[in-house]
């Protein structure tokens, strides 16, 4: 069961409507899609969706890293030797977690398909067959955010994530959305590193009366000490996102008391491989996790979902709504392993082995970015 071939494609799929968060507004999403074929002829699929402003790694860079640096050292390696696979990738290229995660999902998909079991069976087993979802509301005028919240509340969502940047607008948005959902839904605020320590403390204390479930990444990613300060000076649970990328970051966060919860994003943290190790650290230290999202398509979302259903530390809403924001998908609609229903992502009992999703070759071609064409 050795790796025989790795193929990388880039696709671009428009959002249904433009999406705004702290660092960018975008009307489309670029996906890097990897297909790894084993000597048995089985194909595993992986993807990453670059977020260059937050994490670097543009799509063409990921493709180059995989083709020029990873493929030469991974061809011929056993698919189940995941520690060895990572040793080789880490020896070839420093950092570049998105590139590594693209390979990671495809390897885990291959493992599941080769073993003929759904991926969650290889990750500790099934704890829950449905994942509570957060509807993610982008930065916009509070009234519009409230309308969006109402719309999705009526569709069954009971957990909301408000993207935030300016403090006043964030407080107002929280107030408006809380007025809509009252005590029937959870609302969390994600500042994506927007605030200084003092601004964070003041803002969170002002938000307290609207009972946010938690505040995500209030301060800069590198400032774990500052985040601990914020945590000590406020009464709302604090979640680390950009601040905890590697397993070493997780240990530092534990040492410093910087967070109550860790947002595990399998792309940011280089795959299911490292995310599980971070989940182990969180479990050991008594912290919770949630599974976050880079607004991936179905491939990345499926990978995240398998982790979410097999991880005991996941107790609150997860952000796995990427596919709902995209106007189309490159995976086949039939034989699907998942279903969005009433604010949950549900695992279907008919889920196939591995990730449980298959690429639609026609859609792949339709949305493919011809990398060599001039724009």
């Amino acid at each position, binding site marked *: 069961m050795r790796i025989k071939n790795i193929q990388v494609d880039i696709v671009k799929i428009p959002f249904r409507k433009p999406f705004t968060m702290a660092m960018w507004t975008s009307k489309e999403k670029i996906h890097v899609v990897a297909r790894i074929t084993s000597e048995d002829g089985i194909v595993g699929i992986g993807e990453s969706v670059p977020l260059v402003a937050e994490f670097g790694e543009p799509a063409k860079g990921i493709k180059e890293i995989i083709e020029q640096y990873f493929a030469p050292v991974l061809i011929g390696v056993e698919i189940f030797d995941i520690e060895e696979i990572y040793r080789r990738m880490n020896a070839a290229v420093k950092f570049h977690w998105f590139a590594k995660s693209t390979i990671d999902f495809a390897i885990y998909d291959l493992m599941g398909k080769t073993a003929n079991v759904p991926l969650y069976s290889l990750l500790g087993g*099934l704890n829950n067959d449905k994942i509570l979802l957060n509807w993610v509301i982008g930065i916009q005028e509070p009234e519009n955010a409230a309308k969006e919240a109402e719309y999705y509340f009526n569709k069954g969502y009971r957990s909301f994530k408000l993207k935030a940047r300016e403090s006043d607008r964030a407080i107002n948005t929280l107030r408006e959305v809380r007025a809509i959902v009252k005590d029937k839904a959870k609302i969390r605020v994600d500042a994506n590193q927007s605030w200084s320590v003092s601004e964070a403390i003041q803002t969170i204390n002002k938000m307290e009366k609207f009972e946010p479930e938690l505040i995500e990444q209030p301060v800069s990613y590198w400032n774990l000490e500052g985040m601990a300060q914020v945590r000590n000076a406020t009464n709302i649970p604090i979640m680390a996102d950009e601040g905890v990328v590697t397993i070493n970051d*997780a240990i530092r966060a534990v040492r410093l008391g910087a967070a109550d919860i860790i947002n595990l994003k399998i792309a940011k943290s280089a795959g299911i491989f490292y995310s599980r*190790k971070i989940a182990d650290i969180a479990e050991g230290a008594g912290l919770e996790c949630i599974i976050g999202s880079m607004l991936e398509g179905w491939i990345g979302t499926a990978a995240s979902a398998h982790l979410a259903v097999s991880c005991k530390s996941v107790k609150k809403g997860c952000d796995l709504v990427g596919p709902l924001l995209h106007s189309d998908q490159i995976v086949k609609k039939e034989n699907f392993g998942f279903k969005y229903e009433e604010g949950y992502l549900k695992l279907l009992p008919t889920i196939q082995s591995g990730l449980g999703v298959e690429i639609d070759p026609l859609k792949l071609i339709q949305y493919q970015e011809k990398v060599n064409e001039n724009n």
Partner: protein
Amino acid sequence: MKITSIKTFPVGIPLKFNYRISLTDIVFKKHLVVKMETDEGVFGYGEVGVLPTEIGGTLESLASAVDYYFLPVLKGINPFDIEDIHERMNKSIYGFHFAKAAIDIACYDIMGKVLNLPVHKLIGGAYREKVPVTWCLGIESIEQNVSEAVQAVGDGYRAIKVKVGQDADYDVERIKAIREAIGSKPKIRIDANQGYNPKEAIKTLKRMEKLDIQCVEQPVNKLDIKGLAEVQQGTSIPVMTDEAVYSYKDLIRVIELNAASIINIKLARVGGIMRAKKIAHIAEAAGLSCVLGCMLEIGIGIAAAAHVAASTPNVDLESDLIGHLYHKEDVIEDSGVKMLNIEEGDLYLPQEPGLGVSVKEGILEKYRI
């Protein structure tokens, strides 16, 4: 797939000789073996060596925990749902890690057999093909320790572990004599099994520093993490935890207090393969090495530990996996293939599906208590 039954085999197997450690003498070893059966005909085995002085729990209480508490909550559960299995056991009884470990190991044996993969492929892959192991010397006369050490080095062992902790002066004398006899190349590790207090440990270790000691294992009382940190800071010899790390939170505390550089993971103590891997991951993130230890298990338990050691990058020092050699008879088939053999100081990893060992049930019955 569902678990249909879990049979317990409490066994006692005589050792080849008396084994003295700082806590006690051991002449006759008790083991809890479990056989887990499923509705698809696949079955798996788990095993731990039982040492009541180490962890609360006797062979009788561990076996009855499995029979009366764990089996009722695990019947009908899928062995692949290993996280759920541990949660069910934890909700049923607090502690009893030895019994939980035996069940956990049996689950992994089944998972591997179902998927036609050796256990190490399920938990990280073959990061290493063979596991370097230590030869262990008990607290004996200097002559005995020296001759055994020389023999072990001649057999290819690259690391010798010496039990210490009953008498500091005698310990220093023995280590000096061993080092002189085996030369500078083989590694010497000392294991005090909590035998010293922190100040005594630092003083004794300072006397040994020029003897080139690889590390000192559990120098002080397992509850004294601060004392362990004192020793770690008070000497250049790296500190290894053993009895101190029973649960995840113990390891977190060791990390927060910078109390050790190396964690000795024993599947029986931590509660099985699943838990051992999590401990290894936490240690890895904090920059700590790990080794696999044993409670003098026989082939089933040693195989389980070998799979963990082979699949975990930060198990980068020699492990203490020679327990099966100490027994007069083992319960696993000698298949003739290099499997759990130790050659030139390396333990060979089983490659067949599951744990990769075949259990002779006749032997289990022969030694049943």
